[in-house]
């Protein structure tokens, strides 16, 4: 039982990693894979054909080429905002867990407040004021998604600090910096990795939602932007499903892949969960 569970879950995580890697590869090779220039104009509203596998949109752009190029935008916004949010969260979590006291209370109070603020309406409001732009989106999402990482890192730091081997090391004269490198970071890293994967997924979904509402960057069309145009410019009403189904499916498959990966990491690193599964 124990062995089969473990193997099965690793397979699941591996499948997720492979699927996500395929999207990353497609994004990297976008100029080679896209059959046409994504900005070139053909006849509008062409039906899918061998020339245009997914037809063309309202201004005559090849939808498949937009889809492949859109992978770059969606994935990079997700990865950059994920990296920003997680770095910030790790910093706050380490500070709060290590310094304790007043600073801890202040930082965790702030974390609680940010966690309770509904993200989408706030992000909408800020994006409307800042105007469209990929870096704006990355910055805003980075500032919204750090708290859960901070929380996890802090509690991990606290539990590591209280463990016997750290007490012993401290008694032998180990300083904060050494403890951090030697004992805390190795314990925190798998959790941070899992959080990063989930944050990338959350950021990709949020970027898609924002773009769907019309707040995306028209000069760097993401999958969410494609959904927006398909919805707002008649692709949806006119049942041109080859226009709006593929970008949504791509977003969903990326989230699916990332979730599988995070399950794998979490199970490997959280012995409580592993035990619960082994029962």
């Amino acid at each position, binding site marked *: 039982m124990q062995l089969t569970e473990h193997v099965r879950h690793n397979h699941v995580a591996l499948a997720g990693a492979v699927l996500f890697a395929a999207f990353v590869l497609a994004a990297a090779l976008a100029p080679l894979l896209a059959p046409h220039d994504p900005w070139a104009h053909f006849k509008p509203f062409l039906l899918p054909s061998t020339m245009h596998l997914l037809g063309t949109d309202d201004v005559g752009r090849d939808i498949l080429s937009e889809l492949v190029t859109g992978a770059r935008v969606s994935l990079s916004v997700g990865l950059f905002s994920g990296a920003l949010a997680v770095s910030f969260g790790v910093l706050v979590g380490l500070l709060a867990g290590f310094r304790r006291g007043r600073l801890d209370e202040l930082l965790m109070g702030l974390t609680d407040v940010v966690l309770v603020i509904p993200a989408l309406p706030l992000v*909408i409001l800020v994006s409307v004021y800042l105007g469209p732009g990929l870096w704006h989106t990355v910055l805003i999402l980075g500032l919204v998604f750090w708290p859960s990482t901070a929380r996890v890192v802090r509690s991990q730091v606290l539990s590591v600090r209280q463990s016997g081997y750290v007490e012993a090391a401290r008694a032998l004269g180990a300083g904060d910096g050494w403890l951090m490198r030697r004992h805390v970071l190795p314990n925190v890293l798998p959790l941070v990795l899992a959080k990063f994967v989930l944050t990338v997924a959350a950021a990709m979904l949020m970027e898609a939602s924002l773009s769907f509402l019309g707040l995306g960057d028209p000069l760097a069309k993401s999958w969410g932007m494609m*959904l927006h145009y398909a919805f707002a410019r008649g692709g949806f009403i006119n049942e041109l499903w080859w226009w709006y189904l593929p970008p949504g499916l791509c977003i969903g498959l990326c989230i699916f892949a990332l979730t599988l990966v995070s399950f794998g990491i979490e199970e490997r690193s959280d012995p409580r969960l592993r035990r619960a599964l082994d029962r």
Partner: protein
Amino acid sequence: MAAETSAVPAQRHEHPSATLASRAARYLAALFIIVSLNFLLPRLMPGDPLMNLVGEEGYYAAGGALDELRSELGLDEPLPVQYGRYLRGLLSGDWGYSYLYLRPVRDAIALHLRWTLALVLPSIIIAALLAAVLGGLAAWRRGSRTDIGLSAGNLLVYAMPHYWLAMLLLFVFSFRLGWFPLGRATSGGATDLPYLLDVGWHMLLPLVVITAFKATYDFLIVRNSVVSILGEDYVLMAQAKGLSAASVLFRHVLRNALAPLVTVTAIQFGMVLSGALLVEVVFSWPGMGTLIYDAIGARDYPLLQAAFLIIAVCVLLANFIADVLYPLLDPRTR
């Protein structure tokens, strides 16, 4: 949408001495920060604060009288004075004027908020029940085909953008099959029972999407907590007493698994509400989502600010209610 996609929600930061009063103080602090944010954003963000405050339509409607409007809104006064003014206005219900809806922002919000709540509140309850049954079943028969099938199906629905699922359902059931209306909340004209039936008919598809959206989160939580509860001694005891499987599952296991669901529902209330906003846009449901969508298009900033504020207040309230309810559900914390 998802602020928290984590399958296992982060535990709340709990001080040992956390009482209801101190939680309330925490929410008030959060409210203060949210209100201050709402005050500062239009004044600190790029662009003319006047434009940021009244929206594009309002700005151009003022014509040559911009300076008068500026001093009428107190924008030439120092920030602390403006803040006092802003708070007084907020409390007395003066939330600005919407040039998009040609009525006070407060009225526009009141008109739309109820339609959103009418969609979200039933969805949350149905989703919790659905997840309790399916999640309990999957955990009870963990490792079986039922479990793998349910978990995989759940994960797929969870991963897809739910407003995209909404488009898919609308395409299949309304456009192609014609079983449901193309959107909006009523066909108009009817009253009383026919009116309610009409609204229900319009509501069904959006309700299904939001319920599925919320249930996929709940499913993972119920499944995980049931799996860990199944290892507890009192479950073994109940089985040893010879109780039936159903009795053990429903009376001993699910009861304990549901308490965390209340907390999670509160934590995720903002997320579900936000998710509903996007679904509303697809179905042209006349709630806050459609209001926000239209306000973005018209750059009606006062409306967007008020929408953010009122949704944040709803989320804070939901969290506070959950704090009150939790001890009733989990006797250990009484």
